[in-house]
């Protein structure tokens, strides 16, 4: 069980939701706006999706959000999440730091 503690740690929920730093390929969505980036690096499934979904509730329809994730499952789960929730998956890009930048456009 110890391997999963970090995912269950409530601090992991807030502690990792920091805006992407400049130069982190935050511009995949086109905006380059830090507010449009969800940094889920270092978290494992399903945290990248939960962090993305939390952030999605605070944004206007049509906004593009980019989640940065090191967990490979996010590459499959971000498009699946978009399909299940009615948002649109825009695309993916591998960043220099070995993370994936996955972009969605919020429905509406």
């Amino acid at each position, binding site marked *: 069980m110890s391997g999963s503690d970090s995912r269950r740690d409530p601090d992991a929920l807030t502690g990792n939701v920091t805006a992407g730093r400049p130069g982190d390929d935050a511009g995949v969505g086109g905006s380059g706006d830090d507010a449009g980036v969800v940094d889920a690096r270092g978290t494992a*499934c399903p945290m990248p999706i939960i962090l993305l979904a939390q952030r999605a509730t605070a944004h206007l329809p049509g906004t593009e959000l980019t989640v940065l994730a090191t967990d490979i*499952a996010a590459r499959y789960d971000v498009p*699946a999440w978009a399909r299940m929730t009615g948002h649109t998956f825009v695309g993916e890009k591998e960043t220099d730091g070995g993370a994936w930048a996955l972009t969605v456009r919020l429905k509406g």
Partner: protein
Amino acid sequence: MEAVSAGLADGWADPARLNSESRRARTLLDASRDAIADVLGTRMEHVHLVPTPHLAFERITAGVAAARRGCDRAVVGATERDALMDAVQSALGREPDVVAVSRLGHIDVEAFAAAVSQVGVAFAAVQHANQEIGTIQHLGTLAESAHAAGVPLIVDATASIGHVAAPSGWDALVAHAADWGGPAGVAVIATTPHTRWLPVWAGRGEFAPGGVNPALALAAAVALQERMEDIDATDARLREYITTIRQAVAGMDGIDVVGDPDQRLAHVLTFSCLYADGEALVSELDRAGFAIGSGSACASGTLEPSRVLAAVGALTHGNVRLALHPGVRQEDIQAFLDELPGALERIRSRLGAPRLAP
């Protein structure tokens, strides 16, 4: 168990020797192969028993490839078992050509036909049914394409034999006794009179020199016969149970039901739950008495999520994999459905998941 005891009493000797005890062991083995051949639609001399499905995949891919001189490509589907993928890689010394599957898990038949028509294809290897999502392939069409291109077709039927009627159109087939309720330690390679293969390993042209324990072979054959006697009734009952669960979970928020709803194994169902982790689901449901599986990376202890879930574009986290035993009852199904929403709710709130839209 009775079959194993009877087998041990009668089949303890080395079946390759000529004394009377050994002849009895030989007879047992042959009777077992005969019974298995009957179910697979082939003849006893084309049923080869080996200890594990891994060895079966390794030997049949290597053997068929060796008989296809100058061909070093293989064609597989995107949802094949790891054991098959490893065997193909090892037989050819290169990655196979992987044909994509649809959202329901069916191999793209046109892409498959194009792939087998390339120059230098030693064989194609595809599964009959998928062990995770239950989807049964359009094998007839795939076999036609392979044969039109003159490419031998190896079918992985490890998930299907004992659950549905054996497929036809294959040049070689692999099955696994543990998957039909038989003992571990017996896997089957079935061939046809036209299958060409060469033994590229030591041991007098047998797939598994030394063979398998005759007692286990007998138990495997008896278990298969018992399964086949009730197969229609079992199929109908388990299919109804899975349909019930399928419809119930499809109506719950944030659940992605995976696989073909109709053309599938009767007893298998996989679905994924948004904002839940597979490991937590496995332990929550285990606490309630349900032994489920999960294809989520977090539950399997691997870095990668299930290749099958990824290939069909399903949500890979929060995955629940059910395989119903023939002994499952209606009330077990209801109990599972009563338990699931509460378990999901607890996990989602623990992870701080947002509310799902109604």
